[in-house]
């Protein structure tokens, strides 16, 4: 018996000696690659760059695009629309009864900064990788382009925001003590980043087909033109827009109806788009907007429904070509969808009985299941018509009405509208602005346009919204729209609470103010 015990003791001691404690205690994190050696291969570096793009629209519907949708609802183009679910964080914001705690503000903020950090890591690591110089330059160009894209979105929504431009500062304790930078400093960074991008990125035609969708020199120039336009740097805006127009890289889609189509990915007009496909295995690489923006009678959530005010704008211009490809009306056929002769916009749950045609997918082209994240409809951030109208607007303010009218005409020609080449002054300005509204309607541009465009120093948003706003007066005094005036679950007074002293910026998410221990200061009035 003693022998057995002795044997046991020997065995146990043996185990203790043999079992190397270092091996026992060095436990890797299994199933996860580590950042330290991640950038050792070009494939990994490219995957990391791809990850920055992922944050342009977010992984799903709510990180970034839903705030864009809410922004469009806070204009005269869209109602909040969904009258079945009065939500303070959606309907309230679009009516300027702003709820600062909205998770969509917060996730938009968070999403964009995560994108910025992904860009910062790439900018930090890529210079040291051993790969072909042209690819390295391209990747750095992509990272700078995307970083500028994120900051531009942030500054337009929230005003001056904290600036983080390197990865290494995240490792320092001082990162906790950042404060908001000035609006000017944010724009300075955006301009610098876009210049770097322009200098490093290839033209669209220089990319192999498999890389379609990556940032191009043209995309960077277009974005920079829009940045300069927002800053009212008219000459620079005109130059950059012109560079894109004359590059020959892009043409207007001959048929307006073909710009937004499940069959048209990276079309000739598209300058920067997020491509979406149907893939049942990877379920969030398809579009979300056809569902979130779609009619509640058509498997959609019904957030955002076009206003009769917008429809009137098309009608007053005699613009049927764009109207039919922009607005679907209840009980009417859907242009381009032979399967639907009488559309169900479910007016009992839809303020205006109208739905956005641009993010609508014809029944025959729908995947099964027809679910968000699985729809192959691209989302276009920049297209040539946008750049032409940037060019027109910049040229107008740059005292170059001739160039302005030439660009305006190109856009109108496509939809068979005549252009009055005798227009001058305010009439020309208003024509360009109206053209922008009609051409880019429901594409999440109007909100930023109304915040930046000014008449006698007053932002147009303040002229349209507020107790005396034209949109508010139209709805409360003039409109006889059968849907809007009867579905009062969304108030006809939408916009009456608009206050120009605070509503040109959204509130900083209260969570961020708390997390920064008050270092990040709230915007006035919230």
């Amino acid at each position: 018996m003693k022998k057995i015990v002795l044997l046991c003791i020997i065995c146990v001691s043996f185990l203790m000696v043999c079992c190397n404690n270092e091996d026992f205690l060095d436990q890797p994190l299994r199933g996860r690659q580590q950042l330290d050696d991640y950038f050792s291969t070009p494939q990994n570096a490219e995957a990391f760059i791809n990850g920055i793009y992922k944050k342009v629209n977010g992984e799903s519907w709510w990180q970034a695009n839903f705030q864009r949708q809410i922004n469009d609802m806070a204009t005269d183009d869209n109602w909040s629309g969904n009258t079945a679910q009065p939500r303070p964080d959606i309907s309230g914001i679009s009516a300027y009864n702003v709820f600062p705690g909205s998770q969509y503000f917060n996730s938009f903020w968070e999403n964009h900064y995560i994108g910025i950090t992904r860009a910062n890591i790439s900018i930090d690591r890529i210079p040291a990788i051993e790969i072909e110089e042209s690819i390295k330059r391209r990747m750095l160009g992509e990272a700078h382009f995307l970083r500028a894209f994120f900051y531009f979105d942030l500054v337009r929504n929230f005003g001056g925001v904290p600036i983080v431009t390197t990865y290494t500062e995240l490792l320092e304790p001082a990162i906790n003590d950042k404060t908001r930078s000035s609006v000017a400093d944010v724009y300075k960074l955006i301009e610098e980043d876009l210049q770097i991008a322009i200098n490093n990125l290839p033209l669209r035609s220089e990319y192999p087909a498999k890389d379609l969708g990556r940032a191009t020199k043209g995309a960077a120039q277009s974005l920079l033109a829009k940045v300069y336009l927002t800053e009212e740097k008219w000459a620079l805006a005109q130059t950059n827009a012109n560079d894109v127009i004359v590059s020959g890289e892009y043409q207007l889609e001959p048929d307006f109806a073909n710009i937004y189509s499940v069959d048209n990915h990276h079309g000739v007009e598209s300058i920067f788009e997020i491509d979406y496909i149907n893939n049942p295995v990877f379920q969030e690489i398809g579009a979300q907007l056809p569902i979130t923006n779609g009619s509640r009678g058509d498997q959609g959530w019904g957030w955002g429904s076009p206003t009769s005010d917008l429809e009137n704008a098309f009608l007053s211009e005699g613009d049927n070509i764009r109207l039919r490809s922009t607005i679907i009306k209840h009980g009417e056929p859907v242009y381009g969808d032979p399967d639907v002769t009488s559309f169900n916009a479910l007016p009992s749950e839809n303020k205006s009985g109208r739905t956005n045609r641009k993010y609508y997918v014809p029944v025959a082209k729908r995947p099964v299941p027809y679910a968000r994240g699985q729809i192959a409809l691209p989302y276009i951030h920049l297209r040539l018509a946008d750049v032409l109208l940037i060019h027109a607007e910049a040229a107008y303010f740059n005292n170059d009405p001739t160039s302005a009218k030439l660009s305006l005409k190109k856009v109108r020609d496509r939809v068979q509208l005549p252009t009055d080449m005798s227009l001058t002054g305010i009439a020309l300005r208003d024509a360009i602005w109206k053209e922008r509204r009609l051409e880019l309607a429901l594409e999440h541009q109007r909100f930023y346009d109304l915040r930046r465009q000014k008449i006698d120093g007053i932002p147009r948003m303040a002229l349209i919204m507020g107790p005396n706003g034209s949109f508010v007066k139209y709805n409360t005094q003039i409109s006889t729209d059968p849907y809007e005036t009867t579905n009062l679950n969304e108030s006809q007074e939408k916009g009456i609470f608009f206050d120009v002293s605070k509503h040109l910026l959204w509130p900083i998410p209260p969570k961020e103010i708390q997390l920064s221990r008050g270092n990040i200061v709230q915007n006035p009035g919230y």
Partner: protein
Amino acid sequence: MKRAILIIMGFLLVGFSAVAQHTVKGTIKDENGQPIPGVNILEKNTTNSAASDLDGNYLIKVGNKATLVFSYIGFKTQEVVVNGRQMIPVKLIEDSAQLEEVVVIGYGSVRRDEITSSISTVKGEDIAKTTASNPAEALQGKAAGVQVLSSGGSPGASPQILVRGITTNNGSQPLIVLDGVMLPDGTSLNFLNPADIENFQILKDASASAIYGSRASNGVVLISTKRGKEGKSIVNVDLSYGMQQMQKINMAGADEYIKVVNLRRTNDGAQPLYDPANFNTDTDWWNEVIENYAPITNANVRASGGSEKINYAASVSFFDQQSNYDKGWYQKVTGRFNVDFKISDKIKLKQDLSPRVERYENTPAALYNLLRIDPLTEVYLPQSERVGRNIYSIYAASKNNVPNPVGNIARQFNETFFFGFFSNTQLDYKITPELTFSSQLGLNVTNAQTDVFTPQYFTTPNQQNEINNIARNTNRNFDYVLNNTINFKKTIKEKHYMNLLGGILYDAQNYNYLNASRDGVPDNENPDLRYLDAAQGEGITVNGNEAQDNIFSAIFRAIYSYDNKYYFTGSLRRDQSSRFPKDNRTGNFKSASFAWDIDSEDFFKSSVINNLRLKVGIGEVGNQNISRAGQFFSVGSDSYVFNGERVVSSFLSQFGNTNLKWETVRDKNIGIETSFFDSALDFSFEYYKKTSKDLLFNVELPNYTGIPGLVAQNVGSFESEGFDAQLGYNKKMGDFTLGLNFNISTNKSKAVALAPGNEQIFGQNRPDLGGRFIKISELGQTVGLFYGFKTNGIFQNQTELNSHTSNDGTAIQPNAKVGDLRFVDKNKDGLLNDNDLQVIGNPFADFYGGLTANLQYKNIDFSMQWYGTYGNDVFNYPSTFLYSGVQDVNVAEGALNKVWTPENTGAKYPRLTQLDRNGNYQRPSDLFIEDGSYLRLRNVQLGYNFNIKGFQKCRFYISGQNLLTLTKYSGFDPEVAAGGNVINDFGIDYARNPVTKTYLLGLNLTL
């Protein structure tokens, strides 16, 4: 179920076995002439044995020349030669030396008077009185300084144990050690059969727990299971059956609901939404969803006994608890087989095996929706609208967009099958009488498999699931401990006693999972096809990973006592943990404690006080309770699209901290124990102070850093301070026995140092309350306080409204109207914003305590147990919608009388408004904070003992749990669920399933 009964029957049969020639009878009494039941009578040098019955009578068949051995714990063993006699009355003499209780401490056991630290003991018999899936439920109110925080009333719910407050931010659960084997963090006590528990020892201070080092900072709960004793086999059968009842919450009916919805609009100048004439439906969703009574069943059979060489204790148990919903139940079957082999005089082997099976279906978290859904909606669609719909699609969509809870429950299919196997092997080798080598190997393997089926259904175009899905998730965890210790015990010159212990320990935990799901099961309604193999869809997901946590430790402990007057204990533990970067991997934890038995001193003479002892201790324990990923910078991957093709996208998924190090908790404990009148009355009092250093915390950095998720950091220091007091009274007066135990504890945990950047630690971000955090831990303050705006009543008239201005006359709440809340502009800057946030409540009690009373008169026994907390606040989250109808959800019955109207100016809640431009319900405020003090009758039991031939003991009882609650709290249950993280989650009522009232009948039989 059938199988379980068969097993139980099998065990019953084991009990009957005895053969002999000659019958001996008699009565066994103590020195006072009281009969002693349960005395073991053994025929010497045989395995033939018997036990005395309730009246002390025994009967055994033996040979004429046999010698009988009478033994009973606490009495001197007596040998009697039969010598042909047939009646042998026996008087047993108490053995005071043997009465010395042995207390299990880490890696050994000592006599109770050797304990110099703070240890609370709760006996198994007290635990077994409560019928619950989780023995921790029964710990509530039983021991001073130990809080049990409920996690609600769902079957199989696992409460949290909190020992002496909070010193850490990450997981406040104590370490569970089962028969010497450390179990993984967060182990639920569900796996234990309460009837198997001999006792709980709760190590409360660091001088007791330091021997467990790095995992002991939240205290240690040592659980000992029952072991066999030499003597005749004893079989116990315990059965109980009961009904659980959920207290109904009355919600507004259709009339009141329509009035509220319309008032919300008309108060804003908008049109009313509903015309009451159009509605004749008035659904009472509570009655549709909740079943009044849900059964609970417990059956347990144990057999124990042994001979000189082998002792055994074996049990099987069956437990079944149903929820008050259509879905949701919990079942478990446990087995335990504890065997002690005496291989030789020097070698002892213990082998415990405990397999267990748990099956459960999650209880629907339906309360939230059933409170909110409008009463105007029918449960089901009319027959005419069901055409072409499957059985999951016949539920009506509500008017206010709250999912139909009946439909949700009908579409919920999940079932978990859990299998666990625990083995504990211990070999003790007495090398010399003083020196013992012990080797212990504990193995614990668990396997859980969860099947989830999501049916295809259609309610409305945007409330539907177009394709069904089947998922199977499997988790396999394996952990082992290997403890090798050497123990040296010696008494020198009769006065110097020493007990030295050294050891090397390994502790390894492995976690493993594989999850898969697939779309397109061909038949939506056939349960036989709900397997991955049957699915045909293209949507497939597969995930799997593995993780490993290892700790290597060396321990040393010395106990020294002099003349049974002075006791000293010192311990040292060195831990190395795989969770920390290499350079910070090692932690040393030490403790020292001292006790003085004043009553043993010659100068101490008292006829009243028979025990007086002082003790002091200091110690240090560690905490490694932080994600194992904490030190790593990891890259995750996702998908993106270029040119219509999917490509891999990757990103930083975890921001690491390479400086991460141990959290240490230092603690001081001072206490006094005393007893009076021959131990009839005993009293103890302890004061403690625990201070943590390098507090481990998962910090959420400002979002502008773009750092995803949380970062593990060492952020500062918390201090937890309080006292525990216990008073007991036990007296026997003739046929009447009385036992009273009262305990009371206080605790205050505050943040005493916080690193730059972490001066405020927030928790519980509520998007609906302005995206603000409603919990804060701030330097110098109690941790985990409620945070928000203070209110100062309701604006009663325009004059009050107009006068609510800053010094320069600007309105502080420009959007407010009469009937809205007046918020306090804390910093008086004339603006109401985030700078006005302040502490609005404290979820922690000023004190909490329990009272247990046991009475016995002849054959009748009665016991009750109370538990209460005083001075704690509850954040009544349902009150953010129950009196406002936010988003047109339903309101509490009578809400119309509780909201402000020009006629009801004394109302607590502000006016109804849909726009809520004043943010009455969009800000966290003290409107939602209520006093959560309560006193609850946890358990009351009345038992009757009766005689049945062939049984040693028969007892029948009726019992009730949670029958009575005294509280001013207006919500459903003041005993709010704790949530995962005590600091961040505790004290918030999220309308989780409340603790149920339970009525039980039970039977205890002993063969």
